[in-house]
């Protein structure tokens, strides 16, 4: 459905993307992971036909994204990474304008989405907060009921409740058979929605994996706060990989041995357990082992 084929696009400062290839199948939700500045937006711009590639191509439904953007966009929803709208319009005026541009008259889906994401759509866009603007972008990407949707960091600026609603919404879209390419710098968001991910780093694809495989290889880390020092000694005597943070805290890294950790912890005096939020870099390091640096 979406095929990025040996795509290279460089900027005058030497940055860019190099030989990027991946394919999103019909009906698939595909994650595009990478830290900021890795080349996600550059790749996506190319998929939308905004820029000219140095070499390689991006095709959607077999059509070149640059040459046939007008045909492709009839059935494509897009949420840009940087939200820049017509400031003087209200949300509704913007939706009207976009629907007029698309020649799409049905407002059912759009009204559903406005309700679902609780958007105050009659407010001027320039008076909206970052999160509200993000909702406007989200709604306009989906309101014309496209089959292919490209989302560039869709949840940035959304509060946790709305992020949750977004994930539920994407899962519904998946059931409807939509093809979705979604970039993100947060593993959690991609983990819950996507089947496969491509990881991009400094303009190059470093891995294309099934989420399931990726998750299995990722080491889970917890910070355990104990009530006494003897518990810490107990932890260090066990087979668990432990690393002392301070006098009462230990960081435990798991290698498919959750059960063992629970048993050891059961015999200790524990005050609290926190899981460590892993950045993409950390996931990547744990995925390829500590020896590989990003």
């Amino acid at each position, binding site marked *: 459905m979406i095929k990025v084929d040996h795509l290279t696009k460089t900027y005058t400062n030497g940055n860019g993307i190099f030989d990027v290839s991946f394919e999103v199948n019909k009906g698939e939700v595909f994650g595009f992971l990478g830290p900021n500045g890795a080349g996600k937006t550059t790749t996506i*711009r190319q998929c*939308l*036909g*905004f*820029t*000219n590639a140095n070499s390689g191509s991006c095709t959607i439904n077999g059509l070149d994204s640059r040459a046939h*953007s*007008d*045909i492709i*966009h*009839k059935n*494509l929803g*897009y949420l*840009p990474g*940087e*939200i*820049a*709208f*017509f*400031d*003087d319009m209200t949300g509704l005026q*913007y939706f009207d*304008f*976009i629907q*007029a*541009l*698309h*020649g799409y008259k049905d407002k059912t889906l759009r009204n559903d989405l406005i309700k679902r994401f609780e958007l105050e759509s009659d407010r001027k866009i320039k008076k909206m907060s970052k999160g509200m603007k993000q909702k406007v972008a989200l709604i*306009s990407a989906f309101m014309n009921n496209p089959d292919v949707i490209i989302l560039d960091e869709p949840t940035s600026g959304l509060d946790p409740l709305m992020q949750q609603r977004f994930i539920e919404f994407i899962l519904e879209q998946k059931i409807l058979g939509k093809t979705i390419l979604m970039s993100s710098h947060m593993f959690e968001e991609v983990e819950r929605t996507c089947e496969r991910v491509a990881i991009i780093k400094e303009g190059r694809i470093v891995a294309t994996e099934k989420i399931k495989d990726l998750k299995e290889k990722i080491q889970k880390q917890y910070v355990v706060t104990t009530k006494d020092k003897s518990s810490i000694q107990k932890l260090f005597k066990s087979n668990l990989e432990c690393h002392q943070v301070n006098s009462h805290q230990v960081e435990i890294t798991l290698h498919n041995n959750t059960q063992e950790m629970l048993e050891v912890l059961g015999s200790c005096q524990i005050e609290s357990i926190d899981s460590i939020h892993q950045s993409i870099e950390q996931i990547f390091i744990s995925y390829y082992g500590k020896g590989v640096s990003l």
Partner: protein
Amino acid sequence: MIRALFNYNIKTNRVLFVSLVLVMTMYYSIMISMYDPDSIDAIQAMLDAFPQEMISALGFTNFGDTLLTFISGYIYGFLIFLFPMIFTIVTNHKLIASLVDKGSMISIVASPHSRLKIITTQLLTSILMISSFFILTTILSMVVAELMFPHELDISMYIKLNLYTIVLYLAISSIVFFASSIANDAKTSLSIGVGIPVSFLVIQMLSGIGDQFKWLENFTMYTLFDPQKMIDGESFVNIGIATLLLISMLCYGASIYYFNKRNLYI
């Protein structure tokens, strides 16, 4: 032509359009009201009191003895380069560069329309806005002239003069439009789009100061626009019109070509 985009263009430019048309008409009215066939000499005498260089730099050289030559001398020498110029620059800048600079262009190019269709819509808007600006001011000024001095104005020559002005402005507009369509940001668009037309104006004013600077007129496009020569029926006007049309076709054509080919980093 994309109707939704065209409507949007009209909506965002209408306030400036209407206010500048009104300002222009107000100027016309004031100038026309000052016309008095018997006191032309008095005005000339008043102008003679100013330094000759300043007066010629502003293009106030010949007032003749008819209402047409009076308007032509007063308005089509210098004022014609003021308000319509502001309108031309702002409108053409807004049509493309401003959208690219703000990022709003994303929503437009992500819609199911080719770049060619988008740029053609903006180009037609540009031509239509500039032309209707002059058509409106021409009609309004003719009405004012007829009300104040019935049958004094040589209507057919006045219309010809304004068509000539439209041709001049299409050329100016095409240059600003070209700058707007190739720019990645507002700064580039404005520095070219303001820079070129205003430099021409400065050169034209300098060339009018005196004979020692007359050679400068070879370096400004506005030399091709000479209302006095049109009134005098000189064939130079035909060359002027042809050249101005050629410039506008080249610049508008180049705009279409580059906008189609370019990268949009939005």
